[in-house]
C-alpha cells in the first residue's frame, strides 16, 4: 500500500464509497477504547429519558469513519494533515443485529500547488446527513 500520487488526483475525483454497519457492540467497544462512557451511547433507557429516540453513536466514532474513508483512499492515513467536522444529527443505533448503516462518500474539491488535496466528505444514516462541513486535507506523494 503506497500513498496516492498528486498525478492520480484532480478536482472532482470521487473516493470509493464506504458503508459501515454500526452496532451496539461497536459502541460499547468504542466507549472502552476512548474512555467516553456517556450512557446515551449504550443505555437505551437513559437515552430515551434525555429525549433521544434511542441509543446514539459517539460523534467521534462517526468522525473516525470519515477518517477511514479518506485514509484508505490516500493509501496512508498519515497523509491526512487536517480533518474537521460538524456534528449535525446523531446516528441512531437500534438494538438489532444490523444496527445502523452509515454511508460515507468523498470528493476532491481542490488540489493546491504544494500537493495537498481538499476532500469534502458526506456521511448519511437513515436518509439524513449526520456530518456537516466535513473536510479533510491530504498530503499526496510527488
Amino acid at each position, binding site marked *: 500500500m503506497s500513498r496516492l500520487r498528486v498525478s492520480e488526483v484532480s478536482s472532482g475525483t470521487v473516493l470509493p464509497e464506504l458503508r459501515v454497519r454500526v452496532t451496539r457492540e461497536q459502541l460499547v467497544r468504542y466507549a472502552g477504547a476512548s474512555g467516553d462512557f456517556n450512557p446515551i451511547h449504550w443505555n437505551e433507557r437513559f437515552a430515551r429519558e434525555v429525549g433521544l429516540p434511542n441509543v446514539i453513536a459517539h460523534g*467521534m466514532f462517526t468522525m473516525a469513519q470519515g477518517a477511514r474513508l479518506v485514509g484508505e483512499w490516500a493509501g496512508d492515513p498519515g497523509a491526512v494533515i487536517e480533518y474537521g*467536522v460538524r456534528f449535525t444529527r*446523531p446516528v441512531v443505533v437500534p438494538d438489532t443485529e444490523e444496527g445502523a448503516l452509515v454511508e460515507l462518500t468523498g470528493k476532491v474539491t481542490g488540489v493546491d500547488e504544494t500537493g495537498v488535496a481538499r476532500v469534502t466528505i458526506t456521511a448519511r444514516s437513515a436518509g439524513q446527513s449526520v456530518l456537516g462541513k466535513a473536510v479533510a486535507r491530504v498530503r499526496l506523494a510527488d
Partner: protein
Amino acid sequence: MGLDQRFVGRAYPPTDPYEVGREKIREFADAVGDPSPVYRDPAAARAAGHPDVIAPPTFAFLLSVRANEVIVTDPELGLDYGTVVHGDQSFEHHRPIRAGDRLVVTAHVDAVSSRAGNEFLTLRSEVTTEDGEAVVTARTMLVARGTADSPAAAEAEGVTA
C-alpha cells in the same frame, strides 16, 4: 446563566505526559473498525515512511478530552455539563501521532459566545512531545443547549450529537 467571558484567552499548564502504546493504538483502531496495517504492523508503518505504528487521525481526541476536563468542570466558567453536546471537532496534524510518543497537552479557551439561547465554548489543545515538538492541534466546540439568557429554543441550532 451565561458562561464567564473572562475565560477567553486562558491557557492551562501542560498535562502530565501520555505515553502512546502500540496496543492502545491497535485497540482504538479495532474500536473504530479501521483495518489499516499502519496502525498495527511496525513493518507496514515503516514501509509507509513512519518510524513506528501511527494512530488514527481522530486518536488525539482522547488526549484533548483529558486536558479540557479542568476547564469544563471549573465552577467559575458556569458550564452545565448535562446540557452539553459536541458541536464541531477538528484536527491539524503537524505529524502523525506514533507509538512511543510521550505527549503533553496545553489547553486553551479560544472563544465563548451565545446565540439563539445556546452557548458555545471553543477549546484548543496543543499536543506536543515532551521536548516541545508540535504534533497535533485539536479544536473542540461544545454547545450548552438552551442555557444562555435568551429564551429562544435550543432546537433552532439543530445541533444534536
